[in-house]
């Protein structure tokens, strides 16, 4: 078994399969191949950080775990940040490990609109999801660990009369340390740097870290290797070149923001490459309560509702954010801001993710930086505003005295009798502080090679030995957290690859 980190000298390796990226898709793909007896190498752009290396602060998380210091943004009318990790384990290290099975209507949509997911496909995915839930110890957030914010959200939803639930997450015995975003030092979250990847090493595989892939190499139409230059995780200095040759196939799972640009740089010709970028834009509202909430005590996320997933297209969740982030999230400056921050312990942050229909592109830019263009249309803005209204009402139903909507043009805080202000809030995306957390597309899956990049086995149309196995193949929005779907797709694709 071997792990190869940054080095100054050239490095080469020969394996059966090389997997680019080690997040939900890449780690699951590599693990499935290794379990099938193959000799596998994972090539990851970021470094390998074990729990003892995890940062404590939000600054440390941005520096050590986030892709490009969290500075990536989608370009549209508004500049909304993109949250992705760059480390062994990928975004599974910094997410909240929320586990939701792929909804049935998604398969119907894929079949109807993209000509994939016929027959047993959905049952294969659900079967893998059932297995993954056992392997990664998916369980409900334990009562005492959910935190006061989630408890109140549950009460608010009940009072409003809509369905909600405690989250199921890949976290074994969550102790509610509130450190999901910085990596779980309590070793409860089953991020894939702790789970599937060590098993790949134990089965004779390799991990090459600090190794951003520049391009895939081909012989004719057959993918044969990947290459790039090591990058030092601290100084960002470029090191030696690396080349990992694959006897059987190259699997690209470098995330939505990187997979399509890697294929573009590699000369892959496909009219759909880089298209179909979608996301779940998310924003939130603080409720201010009489009681101390201490949202930083308890699971970072513990409560959710999918009641509005189909209509109008929303997912609701709790999210605790640390003081470092609240300091800039609250509007105002100076003495006014300091007075507002004085209420931090009484605040609960609840968020919504929009199942947006807007579509964008992801392309390769200067210095190999991805360029994401993503407008947000009026229908999606109406969904977002509707979601803000639901979250606001849920806060008041749970006993909040005031809410802080964070919408440009609205007062800093509003009371229950001012809710119409949210219902009439501006539909300009620039008025909202939002992020793009769940990303899809760039290498969409489909039957028609003119409209899709990969088939329903993840194989790139028109090429041999080249697959994509991450969220970039997902051709539609899901309306739920995507990790479970990404892992099940990666397992399906790689099992088919082994069978072939």
């Amino acid at each position, binding site marked *: 078994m071997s*792990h190869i*980190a*940054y080095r100054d000298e050239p490095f080469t390796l020969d394996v059966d399969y090389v997997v680019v990226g080690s997040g939900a898709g890449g780690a699951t793909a590599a693990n499935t191949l290794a379990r099938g007896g193959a000799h596998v190498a994972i090539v990851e752009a970021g*470094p*390998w*950080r*074990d729990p*003892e*290396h*995890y*940062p*404590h*602060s*939000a*600054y*440390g998380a*941005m*520096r*050590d775990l986030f892709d*490009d*210091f*969290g*500075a990536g943004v989608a370009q549209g009318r*508004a*500049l909304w940040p993109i949250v992705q990790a760059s480390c*062994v384990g990928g975004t599974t290290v910094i997410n909240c490990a929320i586990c939701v099975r792929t909804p049935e209507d998604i398969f119907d949509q894929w079949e109807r609109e993209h000509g994939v997911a016929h027959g047993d496909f959905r049952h294969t995915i659900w079967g893998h999801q059932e297995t993954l839930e056992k392997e990664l110890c998916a369980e409900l957030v334990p009562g005492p660990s959910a935190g006061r914010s989630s408890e109140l959200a549950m009460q608010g939803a009940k009072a409003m009369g809509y369905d909600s639930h405690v989250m199921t997450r890949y976290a074994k015995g969550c102790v509610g340390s509130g450190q999901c975003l910085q990596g779980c030092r309590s070793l409860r979250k089953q991020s894939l740097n702790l789970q599937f990847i060590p098993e790949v090493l134990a089965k004779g595989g390799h991990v090459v*870290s600090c190794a951003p892939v520049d391009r895939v190499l081909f012989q004719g139409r057959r993918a044969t290797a990947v290459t790039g230059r090591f990058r030092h*995780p*601290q100084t*960002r200095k470029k090191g030696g070149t690396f080349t990992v040759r694959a006897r059987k196939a190259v699997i690209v799972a470098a995330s939505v923001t990187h997979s399509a640009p890697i294929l573009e740089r590699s000369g892959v010709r496909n009219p759909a490459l880089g298209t179909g970028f979608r996301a779940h834009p998310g924003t939130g509202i603080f409720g201010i309560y009489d009681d*101390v909430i*201490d949202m*930083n005590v308890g699971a970072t996320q513990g409560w959710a509702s999918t009641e509005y997933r189909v209509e109008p297209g929303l997912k609701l969740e709790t999210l605790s954010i*640390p*003081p*470092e*982030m*609240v*300091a*800039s999230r609250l*509007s*105002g*400056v*100076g*003495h*006014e*801001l*300091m*007075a507002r*921050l*004085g209420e*931090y*312990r009484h605040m609960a942050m609840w968020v919504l993710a929009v199942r947006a229909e807007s579509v964008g592109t992801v392309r390769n830019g200067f210095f190999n930086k991805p360029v994401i263009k993503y407008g947000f249309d009026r229908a999606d803005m109406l969904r977002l505003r509707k979601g803000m209204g639901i979250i606001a009402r849920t806060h008041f139903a749970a006993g909040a005295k005031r809410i802080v909507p964070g919408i*440009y043009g609205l007062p800093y805080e509003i009371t229950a009798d001012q809710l119409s202000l949210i219902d009439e809030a501006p539909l300009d995306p*620039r008025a909202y502080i939002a992020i793009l957390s769940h990303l899809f597309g760039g290498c969409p899956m489909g039957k028609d090679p003119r409209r899709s990049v990969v088939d329903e086995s993840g194989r790139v149309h028109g090429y041999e030995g080249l697959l994509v196995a991450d969220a970039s193949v997902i051709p539609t929005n899901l309306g739920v957290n995507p990790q479970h779907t990404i892992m099940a797709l990666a397992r399906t694709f790689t099992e088919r690859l082994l069978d072939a």
Partner: protein
Amino acid sequence: MLTLYPRTAAFPGLADTGIDDFLVRFRRESGFLIWLGVLGGTLLFHLTPLLTVFVPLPAFALPAALREKHASRVLSSRIYLLRQAVFIVKMVAGLCWGADPAVRAKFGLPPMPADPGTWRQS
């Protein structure tokens, strides 16, 4: 930056939280784009008092109360790119301020150990 998070009776100000050392570290450790964003935001902050408080002086030359008024107005400016640029400055300053042990103590949170900044090397 100090204008954004001043010392009050309830909280230490940014000046009390080691911002100078933080910025040196931030410059060394951050990516080019985000550092450029901080520089650009700072520059815009200092160059725009004429647009906000109608005084033809750079922000650093304004009296403290007027500078705070300028900061408030620039962060709620109708010009999206202007307020976003200065927001980056506020965000970076907030990362320093909110992580300070004295600030965390005010929120009932324990101090955070230093971020190790290490990784698996073999």
